[in-house]
């Protein structure tokens, strides 16, 4: 298993690993290869499109980006593995806020805990009373943090809509309920989250919830068993037919399609 996949397993949702097949194998074949090897099902993203180049001639190579999207390390994945782990541990352990005013750092710390409404209130408080020392700098940083809070909220709403529209209604509902808790002190945000919950708990999603539960079990079985687990794949194909025309049916179709490439 590639070391990068192990890092995704170890650090979970605190990091995102993107594996880029770079020898021209092609998208379907490379994902099928990973499925056959038992490397899927851990949160890592797989593609065969190079988002950029590290300039390195050999494989495996890597680029490590911090939470702001800045490249902080690049080179050979094997020889620099220890440095990669050290940097990830540093970043997930204690984010670097640089020279950001302390009052605004608190906003981001709250936001990183997922407490959106609380972070919003803190940012508003700093904007109302930026203090007498470096007031304009504090104010600008606080206003930027407020934009970040709204952006996080919008991103969560988009994510819920994507999950609901792409065959993951159970995860969408769980995320919407978490969001509702985290924005309960802001009426406008709470109303949006409640609307999503109401939609996902409605009749339209009842059958999809059932299919999603079955499909997720089959998907995990497919990932856990090398060669893609032919029995699970057969059941996924059956579920695809049962749920045809729905987002869960389309998700099953996508899984069955990729599974074909694990057999080759």
């Amino acid at each position, binding site marked *: 298993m590639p070391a990068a996949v192990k890092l995704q397993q170890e650090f979970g949702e605190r990091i995102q690993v993107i594996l880029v097949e770079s020898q021209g194998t092609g998208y379907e074949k490379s994902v099928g290869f990973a499925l056959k090897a038992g490397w899927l099902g851990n949160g890592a993203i797989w593609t065969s499109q190079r988002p950029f180049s590290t300039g390195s001639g050999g494989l495996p190579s890597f680029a490590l980006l911090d939470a702001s999207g800045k490249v902080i390390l690049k080179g050979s994945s094997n020889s620099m593995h220890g440095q990669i782990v050290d940097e990830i541990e540093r970043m997930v352990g204690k984010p670097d806020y640089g020279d950001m005013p302390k009052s605004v750092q608190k906003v981001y710390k709250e936001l990183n805990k997922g407490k959106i409404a609380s972070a919003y209130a803190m940012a508003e408080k700093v904007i109302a009373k930026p203090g007498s020392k470096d007031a304009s700098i504090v104010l600008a940083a606080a206003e930027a943090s407020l934009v970040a809070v709204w952006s996080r909220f919008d991103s969560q709403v988009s994510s819920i809509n994507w999950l609901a*529209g792409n065959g993951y209604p159970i995860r969408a509902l769980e995320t919407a309920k978490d969001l509702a808790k985290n924005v309960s002190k802001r009426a406008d945000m709470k109303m949006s989250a409640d609307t999503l919950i109401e939609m996902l708990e409605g009749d339209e999603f009842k059958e999809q919830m059932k299919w999603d539960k079955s499909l997720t079990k089959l998907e995990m079985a497919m990932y856990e068993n090398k060669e893609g687990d032919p029995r699970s794949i057969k059941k996924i194909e059956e579920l695809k037919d049962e749920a045809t025309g729905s987002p869960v049916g389309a998700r099953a179709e996508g899984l069955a399609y990729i599974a074909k490439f694990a057999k080759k």
Partner: protein
Amino acid sequence: MRLNIAHLALPAILMVGAVTDAQVVEVGDVPTYNFEQAYNTMGSSKASDFLGKPILVDFWGTR
């Protein structure tokens, strides 16, 4: 509230526009990128979607 019912043909595979793959990045750069095809994106496929957490981009080969 409208549902974004997109990408129904292959649900776990997101299709969006891509930037050039020839862009060589250096330490300190903030690259922009997105993927036309990627597996398990869960709706995240461009650089801005990943802000807030460290990203490890690993280039590997099947051969």
